[in-house]
């Protein structure tokens, strides 16, 4: 019996090719993806491997690179700020897996029920997503400004709950930044969920209505199961993106006050560009990559368990 090897196919199902089959047609197929592989090698694989190796060095960003074994990781596991950053990333993930998804689902479901003006609302909801983070942060910095923002204005009318430096208070800084980032992000989810909901077979709703299902029951038993692949995909992406969060935190609080809004991304930046400890920063980066790999592994595991995602 001839031995066989596996080669990838576009639908990700392996195809068995018998050994002894002509070499040239196989090479011809590979040559089509060769440019992509080369680009991938140059801009993804080599920098990734280099970044991984740097985590075992004391490189400052310039000059000689000395390998120091696991010293960076040993330091990392005793670093209270790193663990604070990690826990903030976890809080961030929990926030983004709940609030924007819930609001996005609600927005999409409500929009799916209207015929006139849907495009207008889609544009309005999506608009913050296309604005640069610098623009969004400046808008909200002014809205929530402790002197000229809505806080002091509301306080004048006897509603004082926002009349304090919301980005300058340890207890609220991370949540305030997450709110601004979530505000810009939820419209993106609305568009994704709306597209998925549009594809749901209308007959399913009709049958549910005939069975006496309420709007909520239609949503719970028809819409949600039908858009599950999209929902799980957004959960996966949010989990990955939450480990990489940087821009909104960096611009609005810089990780402060007193590291209260520090996340792994800002801590990495601080070590690489302020302390000139690129090796240590790379070890933080490795931890971020581990997070992403865990998320992807979970996704793959669920697929192998037969989840339709």
């Amino acid at each position, binding site marked *: 019996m001839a031995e066989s090897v596996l080669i990838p196919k576009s639908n990700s199902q392996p195809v068995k090719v018998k050994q002894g089959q002509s070499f040239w047609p196989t090479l011809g197929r590979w040559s089509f993806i060769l440019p992509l592989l080369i680009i991938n090698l140059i801009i993804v694989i080599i920098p990734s491997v280099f970044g991984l190796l740097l985590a075992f060095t004391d490189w400052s960003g310039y000059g000689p690179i000395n390998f120091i074994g696991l010293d960076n990781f040993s330091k990392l596991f005793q670093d209270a700020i790193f663990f604070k950053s990690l826990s903030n990333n976890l809080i961030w993930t929990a926030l983004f897996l709940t609030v924007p998804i819930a609001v996005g689902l609600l927005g999409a479901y409500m929009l799916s029920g209207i015929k006139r003006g849907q495009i207008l609302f889609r544009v309005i909801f999506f608009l913050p997503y296309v604005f640069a983070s610098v623009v969004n942060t400046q808008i909200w910095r002014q809205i929530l400004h402790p002197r000229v923002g809505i806080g002091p204005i509301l306080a004048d009318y006897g509603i004082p709950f926002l009349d304090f430096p919301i980005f*300058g208070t340890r207890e609220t800084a991370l949540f305030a930044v997450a709110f601004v980032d979530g505000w810009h992000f939820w419209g993106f989810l609305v568009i994704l969920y709306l597209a998925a909901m549009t594809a749901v077979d209308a007959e399913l709703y009709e049958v549910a209505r005939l069975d006496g299902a309420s709007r909520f029951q239609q949503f719970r038993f028809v819409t949600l199961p039908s858009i599950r692949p999209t929902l799980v995909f957004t959960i996966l992406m949010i989990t990955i993106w939450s480990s990489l969060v940087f821009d909104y935190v960096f611009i609005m609080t810089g990780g402060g006050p007193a590291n209260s809004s520090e996340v792994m991304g800002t801590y990495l930046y601080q070590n690489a560009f302020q302390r000139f400890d690129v090796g240590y920063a790379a070890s933080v980066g490795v931890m971020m990559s581990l997070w992403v790999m865990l998320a992807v592994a979970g996704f793959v595991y669920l697929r192998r368990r037969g989840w339709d995602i």
Partner: protein
Amino acid sequence: MNRKTLFVLLTLFTLLFGGTISAQEVTTVTWWTEDYVDIDALNALLVEPFNAANPSIKLEVIPQTSLDEAVRTAFAAGSAPDILQTPGASFIGEFVDAGLVYPLSSAAAELGWQEKLLPWAYESGILNGELYSIPLTFESMILMYNKTLFEENGWTAPTTFEELQAIAEAAQAQGINPFGYGNSGFQPANEHVVGVYLNNYAGAENVYAALTGEKSWTDPEFAEAIELLRGHMADVNWFNDSLETWFAYGWNEQWTALSTRESAMMIIGTWGFRGADEFFGETTDEWDWAPIPPFSSNLPEYNYMLATGSTLSVNGQSANPEAAIAVLDFLYSDPARVLQIASGYNYGEFVVPLKFAAEDFPEGTDERIARFYADFGAVTAEGRVGYTTWTFWPADADVQLWQEIENVWYGEMTVETYLANHQAVWDEARADGAVPPIPTR
């Protein structure tokens, strides 16, 4: 080959290679600078005169957002500019260690830069006996205040800590914050106040001793200085109206607060001259400045903290180091030109630490600014100098100093732990040879 073809070929050859030959005769020197500069003014006052005086060199000054990061990235890519601008002398050490900076001692000796520059400023660029950088601008910390508010209340600029305290308490009694300042958008602003409290309470002599390794940062005078700052920041709210507001206020807020009497004073560097006219111009109040008084009765006189705001060096990988040196020499050889450029920033930027004479200042220079530079020259000439963290601290120690102080203010870290951590980072930097040069006191 007929004559017509020969003519065409000759013409093409002349056009192609003639142009190339003449282009090669001009050496381009690139200099990346901060993005807040008025590039049109800089081109008119520096670039065009230099290029006119040096036909074989073409100087190009290019503003960059996040200059330090842009330079670092460019170094990694092998395309850094010929003239390196860094945020301060603390930053040049890493580049020097990596062999990326051109040594300037021989050029400086030949061109007489040591005679032209203020001695401490010249010395701040020497690492391991070799000159690697020269300050582009020098600064000091001062006390700016709302002069109109002071006059209406019969207050005068404080010369002792007791006077400062009396004004602070009187201001607070009227609902006015003693100081307006904050770190929103620039977390290292923390170090401005930490440095002032270290120098003005523990004393510059002690700071110098700690910088040179003769004292420990854990010594009681430093602990008392940091505790005094912590109390002012977190207990009595001298800075804005709460610790939280410190993190919410930035450049615009702090100036608005001072010019609208929300606050009475501001501890700030001389770069503050840049904002004074702009913000007070929108009110009927006037501003003024004073030296920061000593915070301890053990210190009889005020001094001025020394600081280089930015430094200039020549890229060690530059193909044209001599041309880059010619640019630096053009700048350092003309005090009047320097002051003309600096006047565009109300003397808050581009104040190259040259030995200025009174006549170098353009006519009509603001009396308050001229008074500062005259007093700074006289006082520092007597050796009454302090030390700013961003000039004389190693980068890692500097970051620890301005970062962990927030934990001290919030009571999450004791003063003792903060200073012990600081000493530990210093020990590491000293062992690595990463301590910036400290001018002999």
